[in-house]
Protein backbone atom coordinates (compact mmCIF):
# COMPACT_ATOMS: atom_id res chain seq x y z
CA UNK A 1 0.00 0.00 0.00
CA UNK A 2 1.31 3.44 -0.87
CA UNK A 3 1.57 6.13 1.74
CA UNK A 4 -1.31 8.59 1.80
CA UNK A 5 -0.55 11.83 -0.10
CA UNK A 6 0.65 14.87 1.89
CA UNK A 7 -2.37 16.89 0.77
CA UNK A 8 -5.78 15.70 -0.32
CA UNK A 9 -8.76 18.02 -0.62
CA UNK A 10 -12.24 16.77 -1.41
CA UNK A 11 -15.04 19.13 -2.37
CA UNK A 12 -13.40 21.82 -0.30
CA UNK A 13 -15.38 25.08 -0.06
CA UNK A 14 -15.09 28.10 2.13
CA UNK A 15 -17.38 31.11 2.21
CA UNK A 16 -16.98 34.31 4.21
CA UNK A 17 -20.61 35.29 4.55
CA UNK A 18 -21.61 35.78 0.96
CA UNK A 19 -18.03 36.17 -0.23
CA UNK A 20 -16.59 33.14 -1.93
CA UNK A 21 -13.13 32.21 -0.73
CA UNK A 22 -12.78 28.81 -2.31
CA UNK A 23 -15.29 26.68 -4.12
CA UNK A 24 -15.48 22.92 -4.54
CA UNK A 25 -11.79 22.20 -4.70
CA UNK A 26 -10.68 18.61 -5.10
CA UNK A 27 -7.05 17.78 -5.58
CA UNK A 28 -4.22 15.60 -4.45
CA UNK A 29 -0.63 16.70 -4.03
CA UNK A 30 2.10 14.07 -4.08
CA UNK A 31 5.55 14.76 -2.58
CA UNK A 32 7.62 17.38 -4.40
CA UNK A 33 7.36 21.07 -5.05
CA UNK A 34 4.13 22.58 -6.30
CA UNK A 35 3.58 26.20 -7.29
CA UNK A 36 0.30 27.73 -6.15
CA UNK A 37 -0.70 30.45 -8.57
CA UNK A 38 -3.59 32.78 -9.17
CA UNK A 39 -4.41 36.47 -9.43
CA UNK A 40 -5.01 38.48 -6.26
CA UNK A 41 -8.16 37.31 -4.54
CA UNK A 42 -8.25 33.94 -6.26
CA UNK A 43 -8.28 31.92 -3.03
CA UNK A 44 -4.61 31.02 -2.53
CA UNK A 45 -4.46 32.33 1.02
CA UNK A 46 -7.83 30.79 1.87
CA UNK A 47 -6.49 27.42 0.74
CA UNK A 48 -3.35 27.84 2.84
CA UNK A 49 -5.44 28.70 5.89
CA UNK A 50 -7.72 25.73 5.35
CA UNK A 51 -4.72 23.42 5.05
CA UNK A 52 -3.19 24.73 8.26
CA UNK A 53 -6.46 24.49 10.14
CA UNK A 54 -6.60 28.22 10.81
CA UNK A 55 -10.15 28.24 9.46
CA UNK A 56 -12.75 25.54 9.02
CA UNK A 57 -14.07 24.58 5.62
CA UNK A 58 -17.69 25.49 4.99
CA UNK A 59 -17.99 22.23 3.13
CA UNK A 60 -15.70 19.35 2.10
CA UNK A 61 -12.60 18.10 3.86
CA UNK A 62 -8.86 18.39 3.97
CA UNK A 63 -6.64 15.42 4.64
CA UNK A 64 -2.95 15.78 5.32
CA UNK A 65 -0.92 12.58 5.33
CA UNK A 66 -4.20 10.72 5.39
CA UNK A 67 -5.54 12.42 8.50
CA UNK A 68 -8.30 14.90 8.63
CA UNK A 69 -6.99 18.43 9.16
CA UNK A 70 -8.76 21.29 10.82
CA UNK A 71 -8.56 23.49 13.89
CA UNK A 72 -7.12 21.47 16.76
CA UNK A 73 -5.41 18.74 14.78
CA UNK A 74 -2.34 19.14 16.95
CA UNK A 75 -0.44 16.06 15.86
CA UNK A 76 -0.59 17.13 12.26
CA UNK A 77 0.76 20.57 13.03
CA UNK A 78 4.14 19.07 13.89
CA UNK A 79 4.45 17.86 10.35
CA UNK A 80 3.54 21.20 8.74
CA UNK A 81 5.54 24.41 8.50
CA UNK A 82 3.58 27.50 7.49
CA UNK A 83 4.86 30.92 6.51
CA UNK A 84 1.80 33.17 6.26
CA UNK A 85 1.58 35.90 3.65
CA UNK A 86 0.83 38.78 5.95
CA UNK A 87 3.20 40.37 8.34
CA UNK A 88 2.46 38.93 11.77
CA UNK A 89 4.97 38.88 14.57
CA UNK A 90 5.84 40.13 18.00
CA UNK A 91 7.21 43.56 17.31
CA UNK A 92 9.48 43.97 20.29
CA UNK A 93 11.04 40.54 20.25
CA UNK A 94 14.38 39.90 18.62
CA UNK A 95 14.28 37.49 15.71
CA UNK A 96 16.22 34.90 17.66
CA UNK A 97 14.06 35.09 20.80
CA UNK A 98 10.96 34.82 18.66
CA UNK A 99 12.18 31.57 17.10
CA UNK A 100 13.35 30.11 20.40
CA UNK A 101 9.94 30.86 21.87
CA UNK A 102 8.18 29.15 18.99
CA UNK A 103 10.48 26.14 19.19
CA UNK A 104 9.64 25.81 22.88
CA UNK A 105 5.99 25.94 21.99
CA UNK A 106 6.68 22.99 19.74
CA UNK A 107 7.81 21.13 22.82
CA UNK A 108 11.58 21.48 22.57
CA UNK A 109 13.76 21.70 25.66
CA UNK A 110 15.51 25.02 26.29
CA UNK A 111 18.75 23.92 24.68
CA UNK A 112 16.97 22.02 21.94
CA UNK A 113 14.96 25.15 21.13
CA UNK A 114 18.10 27.25 20.87
CA UNK A 115 19.71 24.72 18.57
CA UNK A 116 16.59 24.51 16.41
CA UNK A 117 16.43 28.31 16.18
CA UNK A 118 20.07 28.54 15.14
CA UNK A 119 19.58 25.84 12.53
CA UNK A 120 16.60 27.62 11.03
CA UNK A 121 18.38 30.98 11.11
CA UNK A 122 21.40 29.55 9.35
CA UNK A 123 19.15 28.05 6.68
CA UNK A 124 17.82 31.48 5.77
CA UNK A 125 21.15 33.28 6.26
CA UNK A 126 20.06 35.33 9.25
CA UNK A 127 22.48 34.05 11.88
CA UNK A 128 24.23 37.39 12.28
CA UNK A 129 21.19 39.62 11.93
CA UNK A 130 18.75 37.77 14.18
CA UNK A 131 19.64 39.80 17.27
CA UNK A 132 17.70 42.76 15.92
CA UNK A 133 14.19 43.43 17.09
CA UNK A 134 11.58 42.37 14.57
CA UNK A 135 10.20 45.89 14.49
CA UNK A 136 13.53 47.27 13.40
CA UNK A 137 14.07 44.75 10.62
CA UNK A 138 13.53 45.48 6.97
CA UNK A 139 10.70 43.73 5.20
CA UNK A 140 13.08 41.27 3.57
CA UNK A 141 14.60 40.32 6.92
CA UNK A 142 11.20 39.78 8.52
CA UNK A 143 10.24 37.59 5.59
CA UNK A 144 13.30 35.47 6.19
CA UNK A 145 12.43 35.12 9.88
CA UNK A 146 8.98 34.02 8.82
CA UNK A 147 10.44 31.31 6.59
CA UNK A 148 12.87 30.27 9.34
CA UNK A 149 9.89 29.93 11.69
CA UNK A 150 8.27 27.49 9.25
CA UNK A 151 11.43 25.37 9.17
CA UNK A 152 11.96 25.23 12.95
CA UNK A 153 10.57 21.79 13.66
CA UNK A 154 11.79 20.28 10.38
CA UNK A 155 8.34 19.58 9.00
CA UNK A 156 7.61 17.33 6.05
CA UNK A 157 5.12 19.68 4.46
CA UNK A 158 6.01 23.34 3.90
CA UNK A 159 3.26 25.83 3.10
CA UNK A 160 4.82 29.09 1.97
CA UNK A 161 2.56 32.01 1.11
CA UNK A 162 4.47 34.59 -0.96
CA UNK A 163 7.67 33.89 0.97
CA UNK A 164 9.92 35.91 -1.32
CA UNK A 165 7.91 39.11 -1.27
CA UNK A 166 10.21 42.00 -0.36
CA UNK A 167 13.38 39.88 -0.28
CA UNK A 168 16.47 40.95 -2.13
CA UNK A 169 17.83 38.77 -4.93
CA UNK A 170 20.42 37.05 -2.76
CA UNK A 171 17.91 36.01 -0.11
CA UNK A 172 15.48 34.92 -2.79
CA UNK A 173 18.09 32.63 -4.18
CA UNK A 174 18.87 31.25 -0.77
CA UNK A 175 15.25 30.51 0.05
CA UNK A 176 14.66 29.01 -3.38
CA UNK A 177 17.65 26.72 -2.92
CA UNK A 178 16.23 25.72 0.41
CA UNK A 179 12.89 24.87 -1.16
CA UNK A 180 14.58 22.85 -3.90
CA UNK A 181 16.59 20.98 -1.28
CA UNK A 182 13.44 20.17 0.68
CA UNK A 183 11.85 18.80 -2.47
CA UNK A 184 14.92 16.76 -3.32
CA UNK A 185 14.87 15.11 0.10
CA UNK A 186 11.35 13.91 -0.55
CA UNK A 187 9.48 16.66 1.30
CA UNK A 188 6.49 18.51 -0.04
CA UNK A 189 6.32 22.25 -0.61
CA UNK A 190 3.29 24.29 -1.59
CA UNK A 191 4.73 27.56 -2.80
CA UNK A 192 2.39 30.49 -3.53
CA UNK A 193 3.88 33.28 -5.57
CA UNK A 194 3.14 35.99 -8.08
CA UNK A 195 6.55 35.87 -9.65
CA UNK A 196 6.01 33.14 -12.22
CA UNK A 197 9.60 33.22 -13.30
CA UNK A 198 10.65 32.13 -9.83
CA UNK A 199 8.03 29.44 -9.52
CA UNK A 200 9.19 28.07 -12.83
CA UNK A 201 12.78 27.95 -11.67
CA UNK A 202 11.98 25.60 -8.82
CA UNK A 203 9.25 23.43 -10.24
CA UNK A 204 7.17 22.58 -13.27
CA UNK A 205 4.17 21.45 -11.22
CA UNK A 206 1.52 24.04 -10.56
CA UNK A 207 -1.94 24.51 -9.13
CA UNK A 208 -3.77 27.45 -10.66
CA UNK A 209 -6.71 29.03 -8.83
CA UNK A 210 -8.98 31.65 -10.26
CA UNK A 211 -12.06 33.22 -8.65
CA UNK A 212 -11.89 30.61 -5.92
CA UNK A 213 -11.98 27.66 -8.30
CA UNK A 214 -9.39 25.21 -9.47
CA UNK A 215 -8.49 26.21 -12.98
CA UNK A 216 -5.65 23.82 -13.74
CA UNK A 217 -3.35 21.43 -11.96
CA UNK A 218 -0.43 19.37 -13.12
CA UNK A 219 2.79 19.72 -15.07
CA UNK A 220 3.22 22.83 -17.11
CA UNK A 221 3.80 21.11 -20.45
CA UNK A 222 0.78 18.86 -19.91
CA UNK A 223 -1.45 21.79 -19.05
CA UNK A 224 -0.24 23.57 -22.14
CA UNK A 225 -0.99 20.54 -24.28
CA UNK A 226 -4.55 20.49 -23.03
CA UNK A 227 -5.03 24.05 -24.19
CA UNK A 228 -5.36 23.28 -27.84
CA UNK A 229 -7.35 26.30 -28.78
CA UNK A 230 -4.72 27.85 -30.97
CA UNK A 231 -1.86 26.40 -33.02
CA UNK A 232 1.55 26.26 -31.39
CA UNK A 233 4.31 28.42 -32.76
CA UNK A 234 7.82 27.08 -33.11
CA UNK A 235 10.68 29.30 -34.18
CA UNK A 236 13.82 27.90 -35.74
CA UNK A 237 17.12 29.50 -36.47
CA UNK A 238 18.93 27.84 -39.34
CA UNK A 239 22.64 27.18 -39.39
CA UNK A 240 22.88 29.11 -42.69
CA UNK A 241 20.52 30.74 -45.24
CA UNK A 242 20.61 27.55 -47.29
CA UNK A 243 19.81 25.50 -44.23
CA UNK A 244 16.74 27.68 -43.60
CA UNK A 245 15.47 27.03 -47.12
CA UNK A 246 16.04 23.31 -46.67
CA UNK A 247 14.19 23.44 -43.35
CA UNK A 248 11.25 25.31 -44.89
CA UNK A 249 10.98 22.81 -47.73
CA UNK A 250 11.14 19.86 -45.35
CA UNK A 251 8.53 21.42 -43.07
CA UNK A 252 6.12 21.93 -45.96
CA UNK A 253 6.70 18.42 -47.21
CA UNK A 254 6.12 16.92 -43.79
CA UNK A 255 2.50 18.16 -43.85
CA UNK A 256 2.80 18.98 -40.16
CA UNK A 257 2.67 22.78 -40.33
CA UNK A 258 -0.33 25.02 -40.88
CA UNK A 259 1.67 28.20 -41.36
CA UNK A 260 5.19 29.25 -42.23
CA UNK A 261 6.96 32.58 -42.21
CA UNK A 262 10.54 33.70 -42.74
CA UNK A 263 12.21 36.23 -40.54
CA UNK A 264 15.44 37.86 -41.62
CA UNK A 265 18.25 35.75 -43.05
CA UNK A 266 18.00 32.69 -40.89
CA UNK A 267 14.71 32.81 -38.94
CA UNK A 268 11.74 30.57 -39.62
CA UNK A 269 8.40 30.60 -37.80
CA UNK A 270 6.26 27.49 -37.99
CA UNK A 271 2.68 27.12 -36.81
CA UNK A 272 1.40 23.64 -36.07
CA UNK A 273 -1.44 21.71 -34.54
CA UNK A 274 0.63 18.55 -34.32
CA UNK A 275 3.44 19.54 -32.04
CA UNK A 276 4.81 16.15 -31.10
CA UNK A 277 5.51 14.89 -34.62
CA UNK A 278 6.89 18.28 -35.64
CA UNK A 279 9.32 18.37 -32.72
CA UNK A 280 10.39 14.89 -33.67
CA UNK A 281 11.04 16.00 -37.24
CA UNK A 282 12.93 19.06 -36.06
CA UNK A 283 15.10 16.83 -33.94
CA UNK A 284 16.01 14.83 -37.02
CA UNK A 285 16.85 18.01 -38.94
CA UNK A 286 18.84 19.16 -35.97
CA UNK A 287 20.86 15.98 -35.90
CA UNK A 288 21.78 16.70 -39.52
CA UNK A 289 23.09 20.11 -38.41
CA UNK A 290 20.60 22.46 -40.05
CA UNK A 291 19.06 23.86 -36.86
CA UNK A 292 21.03 26.26 -34.70
CA UNK A 293 18.34 27.30 -32.26
CA UNK A 294 14.80 26.29 -31.38
CA UNK A 295 12.34 28.29 -29.33
CA UNK A 296 8.71 27.69 -28.61
CA UNK A 297 6.30 30.52 -27.90
CA UNK A 298 3.85 30.22 -25.02
CA UNK A 299 5.60 27.27 -23.47
CA UNK A 300 6.57 29.19 -20.35
CA UNK A 301 4.46 29.69 -17.28
CA UNK A 302 3.60 33.31 -18.03
CA UNK A 303 2.12 32.38 -21.37
CA UNK A 304 0.15 29.48 -19.89
CA UNK A 305 -1.09 31.65 -17.05
CA UNK A 306 -2.18 34.23 -19.57
CA UNK A 307 -3.97 31.64 -21.69
CA UNK A 308 -5.82 30.29 -18.69
CA UNK A 309 -6.66 33.42 -16.78
CA UNK A 310 -6.70 35.64 -19.84
CA UNK A 311 -9.56 37.30 -21.57
CA UNK A 312 -10.37 39.75 -18.83
CA UNK A 313 -8.84 42.63 -16.94
Amino acid at each position, binding site marked *: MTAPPPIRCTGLSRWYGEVQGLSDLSLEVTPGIVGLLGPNGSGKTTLMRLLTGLIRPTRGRVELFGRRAGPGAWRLFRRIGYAPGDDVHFELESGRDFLVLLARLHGESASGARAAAERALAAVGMTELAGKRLREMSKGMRQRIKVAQALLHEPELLLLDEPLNGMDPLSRRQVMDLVREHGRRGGTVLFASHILHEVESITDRVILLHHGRLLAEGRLAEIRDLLDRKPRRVTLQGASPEAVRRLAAAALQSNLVSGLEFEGEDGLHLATRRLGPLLDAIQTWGEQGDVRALTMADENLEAVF*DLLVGGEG
Partner: protein
Amino acid sequence: MSDSPRESVPVLELEGLVVRYGRFTALQGLDARFQGGSLGLLGPNGAGKSSLLRAILGLIRPARGSIRVLGRDLRRGGAALRRRVGYMPERDSWIGGVSGVAGLAHLAEISGLRRDDAMIRAHDVLHFTGLAEERYRPVATYSVGMRQRYKLAAALVHDPDVLFLDEPTNGMDPRGRVRMLELVDRVRREHGIHLIVASHLLPDVERLCDEVWVLDAGRLRMADTLERLTAEARGAKRVRLPAAAAARALAEAAGREGFEVQEGERAAEVILSRPDREVEAREVFRLARRLGLEVHGLKPAARSLEQAFVEVLEGDG
Protein backbone atom coordinates in the same frame (compact mmCIF):
# COMPACT_ATOMS: atom_id res chain seq x y z
CA MET B 1 14.89 74.29 -19.63
CA SER B 2 13.64 71.92 -22.28
CA ASP B 3 15.50 73.67 -25.10
CA SER B 4 18.89 72.66 -23.72
CA PRO B 5 20.23 69.68 -25.63
CA ARG B 6 19.38 66.63 -23.59
CA GLU B 7 22.32 64.52 -24.57
CA SER B 8 24.97 66.82 -23.15
CA VAL B 9 23.55 67.15 -19.62
CA PRO B 10 23.71 63.98 -17.56
CA VAL B 11 20.47 63.08 -15.85
CA LEU B 12 22.21 62.27 -12.61
CA GLU B 13 25.66 63.02 -11.25
CA LEU B 14 26.82 62.08 -7.78
CA GLU B 15 30.00 63.36 -6.23
CA GLY B 16 31.25 61.96 -2.97
CA LEU B 17 27.69 61.51 -1.74
CA VAL B 18 27.43 60.61 1.94
CA VAL B 19 24.07 60.10 3.65
CA ARG B 20 23.72 59.48 7.37
CA TYR B 21 20.83 58.72 9.66
CA GLY B 22 22.12 59.65 13.06
CA ARG B 23 25.20 57.52 13.53
CA PHE B 24 24.30 55.08 10.79
CA THR B 25 25.92 55.80 7.44
CA ALA B 26 23.60 54.70 4.64
CA LEU B 27 25.71 55.86 1.71
CA GLN B 28 29.43 56.23 2.06
CA GLY B 29 30.82 58.36 -0.72
CA LEU B 30 29.14 57.58 -4.02
CA ASP B 31 30.66 58.90 -7.23
CA ALA B 32 28.66 58.05 -10.31
CA ARG B 33 27.08 59.46 -13.41
CA PHE B 34 24.02 58.41 -15.34
CA GLN B 35 23.87 60.01 -18.75
CA GLY B 36 20.24 59.17 -19.53
CA GLY B 37 17.91 56.43 -20.67
CA SER B 38 16.96 53.96 -17.99
CA LEU B 39 18.87 52.96 -14.91
CA GLY B 40 18.26 50.07 -12.52
CA LEU B 41 19.38 50.31 -8.90
CA LEU B 42 20.10 46.89 -7.47
CA GLY B 43 21.40 45.69 -4.18
CA PRO B 44 20.55 43.57 -1.17
CA ASN B 45 18.26 44.89 1.57
CA GLY B 46 19.90 47.77 3.34
CA ALA B 47 22.35 48.44 0.51
CA GLY B 48 21.25 52.06 0.30
CA LYS B 49 18.91 52.05 -2.71
CA SER B 50 16.06 53.80 -0.96
CA SER B 51 18.44 56.22 0.72
CA LEU B 52 19.88 57.11 -2.66
CA LEU B 53 16.42 57.67 -4.16
CA ARG B 54 15.41 59.79 -1.20
CA ALA B 55 18.57 61.83 -1.33
CA ILE B 56 18.11 62.46 -5.04
CA LEU B 57 14.55 63.61 -4.43
CA GLY B 58 15.73 65.90 -1.66
CA LEU B 59 13.82 64.03 1.03
CA ILE B 60 17.02 63.55 3.01
CA ARG B 61 19.82 66.04 3.17
CA PRO B 62 23.21 64.54 2.27
CA ALA B 63 25.85 64.83 4.97
CA ARG B 64 28.49 65.48 2.33
CA GLY B 65 28.96 65.53 -1.41
CA SER B 66 26.70 66.80 -4.15
CA ILE B 67 23.86 65.57 -6.33
CA ARG B 68 23.16 67.11 -9.71
CA VAL B 69 19.92 66.19 -11.45
CA LEU B 70 19.57 67.34 -15.07
CA GLY B 71 22.64 69.48 -14.52
CA ARG B 72 21.26 71.34 -11.53
CA ASP B 73 22.54 71.28 -8.03
CA LEU B 74 19.90 69.87 -5.78
CA ARG B 75 20.59 72.27 -2.96
CA ARG B 76 19.91 75.34 -5.09
CA GLY B 77 17.35 74.18 -7.60
CA GLY B 78 15.26 72.14 -5.17
CA ALA B 79 11.75 73.38 -5.90
CA ALA B 80 12.28 73.94 -9.64
CA LEU B 81 13.86 70.53 -9.92
CA ARG B 82 11.01 68.77 -8.21
CA ARG B 83 8.58 70.02 -10.83
CA ARG B 84 10.55 68.00 -13.35
CA VAL B 85 10.81 64.68 -11.54
CA GLY B 86 8.14 62.11 -10.79
CA TYR B 87 8.42 59.70 -7.87
CA MET B 88 6.51 56.49 -7.35
CA PRO B 89 7.10 55.49 -3.72
CA GLU B 90 7.13 51.90 -2.55
CA ARG B 91 4.39 52.38 0.03
CA ASP B 92 0.86 53.27 -1.07
CA SER B 93 0.29 56.99 -1.05
CA TRP B 94 -2.69 59.11 -2.02
CA ILE B 95 -4.76 62.11 -0.99
CA GLY B 96 -7.68 60.92 1.10
CA GLY B 97 -11.19 62.28 1.28
CA VAL B 98 -11.60 63.01 -2.43
CA SER B 99 -11.95 60.98 -5.63
CA GLY B 100 -8.92 59.51 -7.37
CA VAL B 101 -8.99 62.07 -10.14
CA ALA B 102 -9.40 65.05 -7.82
CA GLY B 103 -6.43 63.96 -5.73
CA LEU B 104 -4.33 63.60 -8.85
CA ALA B 105 -5.31 67.02 -10.21
CA HIS B 106 -4.39 68.47 -6.85
CA LEU B 107 -0.93 66.91 -7.00
CA ALA B 108 -0.44 68.14 -10.57
CA GLU B 109 -1.30 71.65 -9.48
CA ILE B 110 1.21 71.49 -6.66
CA SER B 111 3.81 70.45 -9.21
CA GLY B 112 3.17 73.64 -11.14
CA LEU B 113 0.37 72.98 -13.62
CA ARG B 114 -2.47 75.46 -14.00
CA ARG B 115 -5.77 74.37 -12.54
CA ASP B 116 -7.53 73.43 -15.77
CA ASP B 117 -4.41 71.81 -17.22
CA ALA B 118 -4.04 69.83 -14.03
CA MET B 119 -7.57 68.45 -14.29
CA ILE B 120 -7.12 67.49 -17.96
CA ARG B 121 -3.79 65.78 -17.24
CA ALA B 122 -5.28 63.92 -14.28
CA HIS B 123 -7.97 62.42 -16.49
CA ASP B 124 -5.46 61.63 -19.24
CA VAL B 125 -2.99 59.76 -17.08
CA LEU B 126 -5.78 57.79 -15.40
CA HIS B 127 -6.93 56.71 -18.85
CA PHE B 128 -3.37 55.81 -19.73
CA THR B 129 -2.89 53.68 -16.62
CA GLY B 130 -6.21 51.92 -17.18
CA LEU B 131 -8.04 53.47 -14.22
CA ALA B 132 -10.60 55.40 -16.23
CA GLU B 133 -13.53 53.52 -14.74
CA GLU B 134 -12.34 53.90 -11.18
CA ARG B 135 -11.33 57.53 -11.37
CA TYR B 136 -14.33 58.96 -9.47
CA ARG B 137 -13.98 56.49 -6.62
CA PRO B 138 -11.88 57.23 -3.53
CA VAL B 139 -8.47 55.57 -3.78
CA ALA B 140 -9.06 53.81 -0.46
CA THR B 141 -11.44 51.44 -2.32
CA TYR B 142 -8.84 50.43 -4.94
CA SER B 143 -7.24 46.98 -5.10
CA VAL B 144 -3.50 46.38 -4.73
CA GLY B 145 -2.87 46.50 -8.46
CA MET B 146 -5.00 49.60 -8.95
CA ARG B 147 -3.21 51.46 -6.18
CA GLN B 148 0.08 50.59 -7.76
CA ARG B 149 -1.06 51.97 -11.12
CA TYR B 150 -2.51 55.00 -9.37
CA LYS B 151 0.92 55.73 -7.91
CA LEU B 152 2.37 55.55 -11.40
CA ALA B 153 -0.32 57.96 -12.60
CA ALA B 154 0.56 60.33 -9.75
CA ALA B 155 4.23 60.20 -10.69
CA LEU B 156 3.37 61.02 -14.31
CA VAL B 157 0.60 63.56 -13.90
CA HIS B 158 2.85 66.63 -14.13
CA ASP B 159 4.79 65.11 -17.04
CA PRO B 160 8.22 64.77 -15.46
CA ASP B 161 11.48 64.45 -17.39
CA VAL B 162 12.83 61.87 -14.98
CA LEU B 163 10.74 59.15 -13.40
CA PHE B 164 11.81 57.42 -10.17
CA LEU B 165 10.22 54.09 -9.35
CA ASP B 166 10.70 52.28 -6.04
CA GLU B 167 9.69 48.60 -6.35
CA PRO B 168 7.05 49.34 -9.01
CA THR B 169 5.50 45.87 -9.19
CA ASN B 170 5.52 45.03 -5.50
CA GLY B 171 2.62 42.77 -4.50
CA MET B 172 1.06 42.71 -7.97
CA ASP B 173 -0.20 39.51 -9.56
CA PRO B 174 1.38 38.28 -12.81
CA ARG B 175 -1.00 40.06 -15.16
CA GLY B 176 -0.79 43.24 -13.14
CA ARG B 177 2.98 43.09 -13.31
CA VAL B 178 3.08 42.62 -17.04
CA ARG B 179 0.70 45.53 -17.45
CA MET B 180 2.68 47.82 -15.18
CA LEU B 181 5.96 47.01 -16.92
CA GLU B 182 4.35 47.65 -20.29
CA LEU B 183 3.13 51.08 -19.19
CA VAL B 184 6.49 52.12 -17.83
CA ASP B 185 8.28 50.77 -20.86
CA ARG B 186 6.08 52.79 -23.20
CA VAL B 187 6.63 55.98 -21.29
CA ARG B 188 10.36 55.64 -21.56
CA ARG B 189 10.58 54.33 -25.12
CA GLU B 190 7.96 56.45 -26.83
CA HIS B 191 8.22 59.63 -24.84
CA GLY B 192 11.85 59.80 -23.85
CA ILE B 193 11.29 60.08 -20.12
CA HIS B 194 14.38 59.01 -18.21
CA LEU B 195 13.85 56.20 -15.80
CA ILE B 196 15.49 55.28 -12.50
CA VAL B 197 14.15 52.04 -10.99
CA ALA B 198 15.00 50.41 -7.68
CA SER B 199 13.82 46.81 -7.55
CA HIS B 200 14.45 43.40 -6.07
CA LEU B 201 12.86 41.75 -9.06
CA LEU B 202 15.70 41.33 -11.50
CA PRO B 203 13.46 40.32 -14.42
CA ASP B 204 11.70 43.69 -14.07
CA VAL B 205 15.02 45.49 -14.23
CA GLU B 206 16.03 43.38 -17.21
CA ARG B 207 12.83 44.38 -18.94
CA LEU B 208 13.08 48.11 -18.23
CA CYS B 209 16.70 49.15 -17.92
CA ASP B 210 19.70 49.72 -20.17
CA GLU B 211 22.09 50.44 -17.37
CA VAL B 212 22.55 48.92 -13.92
CA TRP B 213 24.16 50.12 -10.72
CA VAL B 214 24.75 47.56 -7.99
CA LEU B 215 24.92 49.01 -4.50
CA ASP B 216 26.13 47.11 -1.49
CA ALA B 217 26.58 48.38 2.07
CA GLY B 218 26.37 51.98 0.98
CA ARG B 219 28.92 51.73 -1.81
CA LEU B 220 28.68 51.44 -5.55
CA ARG B 221 29.95 47.97 -6.40
CA MET B 222 29.39 48.09 -10.12
CA ALA B 223 27.97 50.28 -12.87
CA ASP B 224 27.59 48.82 -16.33
CA THR B 225 25.21 48.39 -19.22
CA LEU B 226 22.74 45.55 -19.11
CA GLU B 227 23.96 44.39 -22.48
CA ARG B 228 27.51 43.84 -21.26
CA LEU B 229 26.33 42.25 -18.00
CA THR B 230 24.20 39.66 -19.69
CA ALA B 231 26.52 38.95 -22.61
CA GLU B 232 26.42 35.40 -23.88
CA ALA B 233 28.42 32.94 -21.96
CA ARG B 234 30.95 31.55 -24.46
CA GLY B 235 29.42 28.85 -26.56
CA ALA B 236 26.98 27.56 -23.94
CA LYS B 237 23.52 26.31 -24.93
CA ARG B 238 20.30 26.53 -22.99
CA VAL B 239 18.21 23.40 -23.50
CA ARG B 240 14.56 23.26 -22.61
CA LEU B 241 12.75 19.98 -22.02
CA PRO B 242 9.12 19.06 -21.43
CA ALA B 243 9.51 18.54 -17.68
CA ALA B 244 11.90 18.84 -14.79
CA ALA B 245 12.49 15.07 -14.68
CA ALA B 246 13.54 15.07 -18.34
CA ALA B 247 15.91 17.95 -17.66
CA ARG B 248 17.54 15.96 -14.88
CA ALA B 249 17.94 12.95 -17.14
CA LEU B 250 19.59 15.04 -19.83
CA ALA B 251 21.87 16.73 -17.30
CA GLU B 252 23.04 13.38 -16.01
CA ALA B 253 23.75 11.96 -19.45
CA ALA B 254 25.44 15.16 -20.59
CA GLY B 255 27.70 15.08 -17.57
CA ARG B 256 28.89 11.62 -18.59
CA GLU B 257 29.54 12.87 -22.13
CA GLY B 258 31.96 15.54 -20.94
CA PHE B 259 29.67 18.56 -20.96
CA GLU B 260 29.71 21.08 -18.16
CA VAL B 261 26.19 21.20 -16.79
CA GLN B 262 24.50 24.10 -15.00
CA GLU B 263 20.98 24.55 -13.69
CA GLY B 264 18.84 26.67 -15.96
CA GLU B 265 16.55 29.48 -14.91
CA ARG B 266 13.64 27.08 -15.07
CA ALA B 267 13.25 23.68 -13.55
CA ALA B 268 12.82 22.12 -17.01
CA GLU B 269 16.00 23.70 -18.35
CA VAL B 270 19.69 22.89 -18.34
CA ILE B 271 22.65 24.87 -19.58
CA LEU B 272 25.34 22.85 -21.34
CA SER B 273 28.83 24.04 -22.15
CA ARG B 274 32.18 22.57 -23.15
CA PRO B 275 35.37 23.63 -21.46
CA ASP B 276 37.29 23.72 -24.73
CA ARG B 277 34.86 24.69 -27.49
CA GLU B 278 31.39 25.84 -28.47
CA VAL B 279 28.50 23.43 -27.94
CA GLU B 280 26.93 22.51 -31.26
CA ALA B 281 23.18 22.20 -31.64
CA ARG B 282 23.67 18.97 -33.50
CA GLU B 283 25.31 17.14 -30.61
CA VAL B 284 22.55 18.21 -28.22
CA PHE B 285 19.84 16.94 -30.55
CA ARG B 286 21.69 13.64 -30.92
CA LEU B 287 22.12 13.24 -27.20
CA ALA B 288 18.42 13.92 -26.64
CA ARG B 289 17.47 11.45 -29.34
CA ARG B 290 19.54 8.75 -27.73
CA LEU B 291 17.77 9.34 -24.42
CA GLY B 292 14.39 9.49 -26.16
CA LEU B 293 13.74 13.03 -24.99
CA GLU B 294 11.78 15.69 -26.82
CA VAL B 295 13.64 19.01 -27.13
CA HIS B 296 11.34 21.98 -26.50
CA GLY B 297 13.94 24.67 -26.83
CA LEU B 298 17.57 25.16 -27.68
CA LYS B 299 19.41 28.43 -27.90
CA PRO B 300 22.65 30.16 -26.96
CA ALA B 301 22.66 30.80 -23.21
CA ALA B 302 22.85 34.40 -22.13
CA ARG B 303 23.93 35.15 -18.63
CA SER B 304 20.95 36.25 -16.58
CA LEU B 305 21.08 39.46 -14.64
CA GLU B 306 20.72 37.38 -11.52
CA GLN B 307 23.91 35.49 -12.21
CA ALA B 308 25.72 38.74 -12.92
CA PHE B 309 24.36 40.24 -9.73
CA VAL B 310 25.35 37.31 -7.58
CA GLU B 311 28.82 37.27 -9.10
CA VAL B 312 29.31 40.96 -8.34
CA LEU B 313 28.21 40.63 -4.75
CA GLU B 314 29.92 37.36 -3.97
CA GLY B 315 32.87 37.91 -6.28
CA ASP B 316 35.43 39.63 -4.11
CA GLY B 317 33.82 39.48 -0.74
